[in-house]
């Protein structure tokens, strides 16, 4: 049985289960992985399936804990308070609002390199502000999703580049400028493109009407404590290593959530956790399924076949291959795409400046977080704005994402030229 046939069979099984039988995506992935393993002559390779899912274990911990933190922010009144603060400061300045919001969303991504963290922390903070200022639910979601992805690519921490650098022995040095060249125009254009037309400058009275209740007067400054601690620890682990202990993103979020119990409106942390788990369960199961799917693809040789096929494109098509395969493969996760495809692509373009190449590739790979079925950035952005169908959010991401793709590819193509400029 050829690798291609196994791969197509797995895809077909998935489509059948998910679209015809309407099983949840995650469960469909699990069963199609199982089917692939049987067809590939591996039997019901249980340990392989389980091992594959472990590829996302750390991601799952981040997602659940971030979700708990977001729920705590909502229920303790912190979210409303921050929304009120932002609204009061920005209700008359459209561009300033959009750019600040963009920077805020990007920030956690910039220091952790994870888009999920960005969407579920500051993304959740700015969402109500944007919506109250007149931006539609789905466009708000799109702006947050794009902001999170740009944050992931932006310096100082770009894990995608680090993963690619690890594969070609390139130290993570000298990336700030090239990454900024890519990110800044995208951040500005995306926020304005999505928001400029719809955001309304409102009168003071109008603003008063939509202003949520601020709990600052009840709890004072300690209300902000969970946020400050979380942001401080996130910042500290990358900017001041050794001084501020690196306790990892999940522990940071849980610590923030724990503080949230005492810093605002009273809440039942057990019930909040249940709510968080309930909301994150579909994506958790998808990750488990994707992990198994990839493991079986690798085991049966389907992954190698795909990578080799893309790499053996002739030079012009190679760029097309990069532009399509890297975001597509991002359905697995942007990190997986960077490691599995990014590294060979850098090697295929070894005569170019590897710093520029990998920066550009990271921008392209980052888009993978918009790719269903995982679509981490899209799914959580939809959840943050309360939109049930994340595809509606993704629709508005399309233009900015295309723009990001164009910029990424342009940097790749014109790397020799840029090389001289820098």
């Amino acid at each position: 049985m050829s690798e291609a046939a196994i791969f197509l069979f797995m895809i077909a099984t998935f489509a059948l289960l998910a679209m015809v039988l309407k099983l949840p995506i995650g469960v469909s992935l699990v069963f199609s992985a199982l089917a692939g393993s049987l067809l590939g002559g591996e039997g019901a390779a249980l340990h392989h399936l389980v091992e594959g899912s472990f590829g996302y274990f750390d991601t799952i911990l981040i997602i659940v804990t971030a979700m708990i933190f977001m729920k705590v922010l909502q229920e303790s009144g912190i979210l409303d308070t921050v929304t009120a603060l932002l609204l009061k400061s920005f209700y008359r300045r459209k561009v300033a609002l959009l750019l600040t919001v963009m920077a805020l969303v990007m920030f956690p991504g910039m220091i952790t390199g994870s888009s999920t963290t960005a969407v579920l922390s500051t993304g959740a903070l700015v969402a109500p502000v944007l919506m109250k200022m007149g931006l539609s639910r789905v466009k708000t979601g799109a702006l947050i999703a794009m902001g999170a992805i740009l944050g992931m690519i932006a310096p100082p921490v770009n894990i995608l580049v680090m993963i690619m650098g690890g594969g070609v022995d390139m130290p993570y040095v000298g990336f700030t400028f090239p990454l900024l060249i890519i990110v800044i125009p995208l951040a500005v254009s995306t926020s304005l493109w999505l928001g400029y037309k719809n955001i309304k400058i409102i009168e003071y009275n109008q603003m008063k009407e939509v202003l949520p209740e601020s709990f600052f007067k009840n709890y004072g400054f300690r209300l902000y404590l969970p946020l400050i601690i979380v942001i401080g620890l996130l910042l500290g682990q990358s900017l001041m290593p050794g001084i501020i202990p690196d306790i990892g993103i999940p522990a940071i979020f849980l610590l923030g959530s724990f503080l949230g119990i005492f810093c605002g409106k009273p809440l039942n942390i057990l019930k909040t956790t249940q709510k968080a788990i309930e909301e994150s369960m579909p994506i958790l199961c998808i990750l488990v399924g994707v992990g198994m799917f990839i493991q079986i693809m690798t085991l049966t040789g389907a992954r190698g076949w795909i990578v080799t096929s893309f790499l053996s494109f002739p030079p012009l098509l190679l760029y097309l291959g990069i532009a399509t395969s890297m975001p597509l493969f991002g359905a697995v996760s942007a990190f997986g795409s960077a490691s599995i495809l990014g590294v060979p692509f850098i090697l295929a373009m070894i005569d170019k400046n590897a710093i520029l190449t990998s920066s550009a590739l990271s921008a392209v790979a980052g888009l993978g977080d918009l790719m269903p079925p995982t679509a981490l950035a899209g799914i959580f952005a939809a959840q943050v704005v309360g939109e049930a169908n994340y595809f509606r959010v993704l629709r508005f991401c399309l233009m900015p994402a295309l723009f990001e793709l164009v910029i990424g590819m342009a940097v790749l193509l014109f790397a020799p030229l840029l090389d001289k400029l820098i």
Partner: protein
Amino acid sequence: MIKNIFKILFLLAFFIFTVSAREKKETALPVFEQPLLITSAGQGAEVYLASVLAKRAGLNSSLSKIAAPKDMKNIKTLVLVLGASLKGLGSAGLDKAKEKERINLLVAEAQKKNIPILCLHLGGEARRGKLSDEFITFFLPFAKMAIVVKSGNKDRLLSRICEERNIPWKEVEKAADALKPFKEAFK
């Protein structure tokens, strides 16, 4: 019939002439003088190989991976070891453009002072490919003489450049075999 004999004679004469011309060229190998400065063109690690060869040949040499014109004060020969390494470039804090610029300055200085350049390509097949080839095509033409390892010249890129520019060149089987021509090239 006679016409044909003429033709054959003519061809024969031409053949002998070219062969003898070529042999003449080989006997007229340039003779380099010591001391020599060994540096890399592309930061491939074979620069160390060259240094070991020079040592074995008993030549008075100095090695500087990132030599600059100021290092050429009392130098009579400049040895360029061709071959690029991404790791090497990164390690020296250089990129392709900066490395080319550095070699350009060296070559200019050498031309100004009439210092002959000896080019070595010792890395074989492994030290070819897009990046290395750029350095080869760029700097080999400046050589007074070249010594190349055979497997690095499978596609005859190096020998072609040399022949086009009348640069005498020697092909050796392995890097170690470069010792003999390297030694002989010096006074």
